[in-house]
């Protein structure tokens, strides 16, 4: 249907189109800024921040227009404790391990980043106090690729993980569901993540205090042969910044090419810059699952 509508619009355009020219409008001029990504969690072993630059949207393009900024000063502050994060060329990020920075639930963390030729950017996040530990694995469901009507299949079997968790009714909660398998795949293409390039986000608007079930997490594999593998299922209690940023990035990615949808404005809580500084809590359960053909 969408195709036919577009065909008709094309016919109209051909009938009525008068011309196309460079727009003579006042375009925004914007100097490059810093874009910052930091996600703090008491459950992580490292605290890591990525810093890149933004690039003016219009005009001539340059090579390496968006790059890692390696000479920035990244400072995280909490309760008068200043933490300077050094840059690691291995990870292309500024990071400290948990021995050198304490991420404490319920506390607010501030970030300030300065780099030559860029305006100073700042942001803050409050680490979620509560952690939801109600995640339960219910069952698994197997699906052979021949049962799926997808001609571009690259795997022979898919296993779905059905899970449930209960929302804490006292507060507003945002969640992310994810996971991975702890398994070295013998065949190419068998990646370990269970969200398969999706971002499964939830807010508790419609089910405050209730139980949610979901089987969106799945794993694709070529051959199982009765191997049993440990599967890590994770429920993240995420803060508002984490939720909004990832939700809008996901929407932007899906709809940016669609001329009929409203433009998606990606969320940012970075003052004078772009990106996000957010936090989350992580609860993980491990389930041994057999891969059958």
């Amino acid at each position, binding site marked *: *249907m969408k195709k036919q509508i577009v065909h008709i619009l094309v016919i109209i355009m051909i009938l009525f*189109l008068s011309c196309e020219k460079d727009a003579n409008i006042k375009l925004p001029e914007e100097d490059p800024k810093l874009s910052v990504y930091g996600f703090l969690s008491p459950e992580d072993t490292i605290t890591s921040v990525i810093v890149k630059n933004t690039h*003016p949207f219009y005009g001539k393009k340059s090579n390496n227009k968006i790059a890692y900024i390696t000479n920035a000063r990244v400072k995280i502050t909490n309760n008068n404790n200043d933490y300077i994060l050094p840059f690691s060329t291995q990870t292309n990020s500024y990071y400290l391990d948990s021995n050198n920075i304490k991420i404490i639930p319920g506390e607010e963390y501030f970030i300030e980043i300065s780099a030559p030729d860029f305006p100073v950017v700042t942001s803050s996040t409050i680490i979620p106090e509560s952690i939801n530990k109600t995640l339960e694995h219910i069952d698994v469901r197997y699906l052979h690729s021949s049962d799926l009507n997808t001609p571009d299949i690259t795997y022979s079997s898919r296993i779905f993980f059905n899970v449930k968790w209960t929302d804490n009714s006292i507060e507003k909660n945002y969640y992310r569901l994810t996971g991975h398998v702890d398994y070295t795949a013998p065949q190419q293409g068998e990646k370990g993540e269970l969200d398969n390039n999706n971002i499964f986000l939830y807010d508790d608007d419609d089910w405050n205090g209730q139980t949610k079930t979901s089987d969106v997490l799945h794993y694709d594999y070529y051959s199982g042969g009765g191997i049993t593998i440990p599967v890590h299922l994770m429920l993240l209690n995420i803060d508002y910044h984490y939720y909004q940023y990832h939700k809008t990035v996901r929407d932007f990615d899906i709809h940016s090419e669609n001329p009929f*949808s409203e433009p998606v404005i990606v969320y940012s809580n970075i003052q004078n810059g772009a990106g996000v500084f957010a936090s989350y809590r992580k609860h993980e359960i491990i389930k041994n699952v057999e891969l059958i053909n």
Partner: protein
Amino acid sequence: MYKKKITILFLLVCMFTQAYSQKYTLSGYIKEAKSQELLLGTTVYIAELKTGTSANAYGFYSITIPEGEYTVEYSFVGYKTETKKIVLDKNISLDVSLSIGQELEEVVVTADKINKQSEDVRSSVISLPVQQIKEIPSFLGEKDVLKVIQLMPGVQKGTEGQSGIYVRGGGPDQNLLILDDAPVYNAQHLFGFFSVFNGDALRSVELIKGGFPAKYGGRLSSVIDMNMKDGNKEHYTGELGIGLISSRAVLEGPIIKDKSSFLISGRRTYIDLLLMPIIKSQTDGVKTGYYFYDLNAKVNYDINKKNKLFLSGYFGRDIFYSKDEEFNYRLGWGNQTGTLRWNHQFNNKLFVNTSIIYSKYNFSIDLEEKYDDKKFLLKYSSGIEDIGAKIDFNYYPTPKHTIHFGLASTYHEFIPRALVIKDDDMPDDIGSKKIIGTVESGAYIEDLYKPFNRMQILGGLRYSHYTHNGTKYDMFEPRISASYKLFDDLAVKASYAKMQQYIHLLSNTGIGLPTDLWVPSTNEVKPQEAWQVACGVAKDFPNRNLSLTVEGYYKEMDNIIGYKEGANFLALDESSSFDEINWQKMVTTGRSWSYGTEILLQRKVGKLSGWLGYTLSWTKKKFPELNFGEEYWAKYDRRHDFSAVLIYSFNKKIKMGATWVYATGNAMSMPLSEYSGEIHNPTPYDNYYTQSVILNEYPGRNQFRMNPYHRLDLNIQFNKKKKRGTRTWEISIYNVYNRKNPFFYYVNTSETETKVKQVSLFSILPSFSYSFKFN
């Protein structure tokens, strides 16, 4: 002491005389002399009492005044004023016929009391002279009521060539378009480039932007009330017109002389027929084309002096088709309306109209395909269907009070999806239909009160009620308009109105696609609400036939729907997806407010007629879920909007028209910069960062402006009286100075540079048409 007693006695006598002097009622119908068509809104003025009334929407008038001898003036713009001397010593029923004034004899049509803006209690109301609609330059020669409405202050068009209407910051879904009491749900042909109202069959068009009378309800922003002609009761007459893209015909005449008449009017485009050889050669023999047609019909019957029946209908459809020997694809959409009205005069003070109303908008796809001697058939449709009834009473107890009251109820049937698939390869047919039924009702009472000659108050209350699947909403909607005459031709006016809207339109394309879908209010998506205040002055210059209105307004709308960023309603028309996509999750509700000033200088008759309109306005929106809760400019926020419409009659044979419009560009969202967005990976794969997405940074919603829109159109009409009628040649030029107005902008990214490109639609477009009006 003695003097005081005499004075008191005199006052008592006066009061007694006033209270108990015998009163009688003068009532009747006002018609046009030549065709015996009822004339609505005619002014009836009693010179001796300096008071009057006006005919209702069915040409009926009634005024109750003390016994006496009076001079009664009946006047209507464009018609010669009829003066009657009456001796009112009993109730009198007097039908009056007015004859058309000679257009160039300005004095004839200049009457002191005719349709003056300063005499009308209502503010924010514009009556469009139907004759002028035919004389204004138009796009490809197609006379279009909605495009003329767009030229009025307070009304904005969407984009180039579109007939969508944005009134005082409201959306096109917030306009109540009614044709003979029946709502029209999608008034657009060819994706909005033409509207369904061509003007041939119309008798009156009134645009109400605020201070809504209590009888109207169900939309927030405007009422466009159109009445079809009844048909000539005296003799047969008609008109034929041939234009560049369509032809049209009107025929009207008596069925039973002076008792019953009919009118039928039709129009069809023929772009498909003209282009067929080219299209066929380009598409390997596949016949592909597009056309639309309209049909208006009306019959009326005067049962007796106190009872009249009217039956009217509209049927219009757009068809896109593509077919060859094995494949037949047909896409269609259109409206059907029908109204049966019964006018009954209980007595000379109480008039009632009862209407039974039907309206339907439907979008359909029919696909038939043959393969291997087998057949595949798909039928899909969506739309809305209404069946309603209303009863409106007009009661005229005294010249100081005119009371309107009534009831209305409509059953809406929303059909978001109906699907049938038949395939010879499938054992069973697939069929599903989703229907949502709702009932919307209203009751109202309203009094036009004239406490003294200079003051008028139109106060009313509407109670509206809505039920859907156990969900109920109701609302009291107070309405009040008042005017006070400072001088004979200068009045100050003010109005307040509260409105409620129970249905919503899903459409985020803004270009009038037929897939736009009406949906009901639900538990989650509440009815839209609005309130509006307006105040201003109206000044008439009767010697020059000019009227000037200056009006300021403030309007606030709540619970209006917006589309979540990334939401795409085109998906809704995909046959299997309506149940899967919960539209309620794709919309979000918020608030919008608009304020501004409108100036209109209008001349309805004379050698030089037309108007100058200017609007200075601001429209903002605030949605908790959009733009991160920050307020932003509405897409059609227009700081300046100016229209000049001039029609000049050189003589009886030649008329020339010119239209110039200027409007601030639409607001739009443009990216500032691009950057690499990192997606967090809480699993240990790929160093905790799985992927980067190139993102655009927007400074916010609708922060930039398109270039201003301006355009000049010209036309010239050559009329010639022939033996059997009048023929007219018309030459029009659209966009005379070939302005490249922006239709939309898009970002063009090459390997070396990113640029913004502007797409314009119509360059200079000449057109011509021929019409012949039979006597």
